[in-house]
């Protein structure tokens, strides 16, 4: 467990170093006052110091009642990754397949595969959440959600 915390600490240290390096290339001070590099540079320095302090703190800790299992179980990792992947796929395919189809597929996946819901529940919720929301936003809230870019799907009203 200690190694996981240390890795996280080092990530923050790395991020801080990167921010300091990037800020160094910006103007630190101008005739008028602090430049665009001033604030992020100091934030990077402070962040680096805090991250190092945390790294030292977790490295020196022997372990105790506050230590909880950081890494999820394999099944949990799969559920998390598949949820994130489904979200990312939906975001990527929304403009291509249209909101209705993309959201329908996402909801079916989340409800049926992850949530193990009954088929009729899945279909009802997925339809309401995709087609229903599409028309609700378009007709009443004046927010046009994307239609399908693929001609075949667009001809189907998606």
């Amino acid at each position: 467990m200690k190694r996981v915390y240390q890795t996280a600490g080092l990530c923050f240290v790395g991020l801080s170093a990167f921010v300091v390096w990037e800020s160094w290339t910006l103007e630190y001070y101008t005739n008028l006052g602090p430049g665009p590099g001033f604030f992020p540079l100091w934030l990077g320095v402070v962040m680096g110091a805090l991250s190092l302090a945390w790294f030292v703190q977790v490295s020196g800790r022997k372990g105790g009642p506050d230590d909880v299992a950081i890494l999820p179980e394999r099944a949990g990792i799969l559920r998390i990754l598949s949820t994130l992947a489904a979200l990312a796929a939906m975001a990527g395919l929304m403009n291509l397949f249209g909101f209705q189809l993309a959201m329908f597929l996402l909801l079916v996946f989340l409800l049926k595969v992850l949530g193990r819901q009954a088929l009729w529940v899945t279909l009802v919720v997925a339809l309401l959440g995709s087609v229903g929301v599409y028309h609700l936003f378009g007709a009443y809230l004046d927010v046009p959600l994307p239609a399908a870019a693929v001609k075949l799907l667009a001809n189907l009203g998606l």
Partner: protein
Amino acid sequence: MELFEHLLFGTQTLFTPVNLAFCFIGVLMGTLVGVLPGLGPTAAIALLLPATFHTPPVASIIMLAGIYYGAMYGGSTTSILVNIPGEAASVITCLDGYQMALQGRAGPALGIAAFGSFIAGTISVVGLMLIAPPLAKFALAFGPPEYFSLMLMGVVVLIYLGSGSILKALMMAVFGLLVGTIGQDSISGTLRLTFGIRELYDGVGLIPAIMGLFGVSEVISNVEQAIKTEIISAKARNLMPNRQDWRDSFWPIIRGSVLGFFIGILPGPSSTISSFSSYALEKKVSGNPAKFGKGAIEGVAGPEAANNAATGGSFIPLLTLGIPANAVTALLLGAFMIHGVTPGPLLISKHPDLFWGTVMSMYLGNIMLLILNLPLIGLWVQVLRVPYPILFPLILLFCLVGVFSLNFSQAEVGLMIGFGAFGYAARKFQFELAPLVLALVIGPMIENYLRLSLIISRGSPWIFFRRPISAVFILITLTLLFSPFMPRIGRSRERFQ
């Protein structure tokens, strides 16, 4: 007389069909959110922020404010009926509220929670109405150094009053400030930390970040465990407290209201702190402290009054100084900014409809909540029957649609997912997210005030110490920052927690 005119103006502003409807929607959503464990006012406001884009500013703020104080009403329902707090602020209500339910007295517990919340909410709105205008006048004396030091102090106080490690909370706050620097510098126009990504030129959007940190990460945290279909059943009858219940609850409600209101003004998780503080106070002043934890109605009345009063108090720094005291008011500040309104000392004079309309909506909202909460408790209990496997896809749906409808940007949806993953990791490593959100919202303002102050002083940092008000804020900030090294103050923090 002037106050009466303002109230009349506020009433005229409120009593339009649109504003009344949004007030009702806000308190209804707030109660619903409060009833549902795991979905707090922060997430609810984050999810509904995009929906307010196309609505007038007054209606939007009325609705979002209604969600905030409505959630405090709803949170007590599940605490009392099924020993599951709907909100962090309702945790303490479980101790005696659930015991009352086991003794067949769920009805009076729910009734006194609702009435106590109503009385406290009303008292806190009166306090807001009386204190906000003179405080706003005082704040007109503030310049950039005062605003910088006050905002910095606000972030540090929030960190200090949090429950976790100060070091990790500071890291989150600094990270939030860093994220706020991404994009085009407002003074020079230089691009910072954008990595050549065009969508980041305008900076990291507040909505995608908040939706990710609270909505998506919450879902991922729950998905990590096997998604259980849990159905909760609960019953409640005869909601009216009897005469003895009222006699026992009257002074706890009054004490809780006053205590909660003043704690609400302070930065930090004020509703939670106020409810715990009220419980401790009632136990201390009680003639029979042993009865607490076994179904003492004072243990419900005081804390529920306190957490509601705290919501009214927390509006004071937001509306008069433009400084949010916690994550929820930080989101409300975001809502103001989205609508082009700058909260602060000039809000009352420049946007009197917004200020007085919101104040009056809180009066009316409290009445609506009292009416909603008592007869509809059976309905709220039914909501608990919605299994989480159905709820979490709907939450993700709201998040996706909410973010996408902002700018129709897939990049922002990607940003939300990224923040979701970060928020999940932060929770696993026990980092608090409230300092990050607060810093993200006010970070750009902190930087601007800092740079303006240094321009005024020609680069001398002593400007923050030469001006008395700023010096006081800086002194408090430094004391709290170095408190871990001062044993006496460190022990006070532990006692406070």
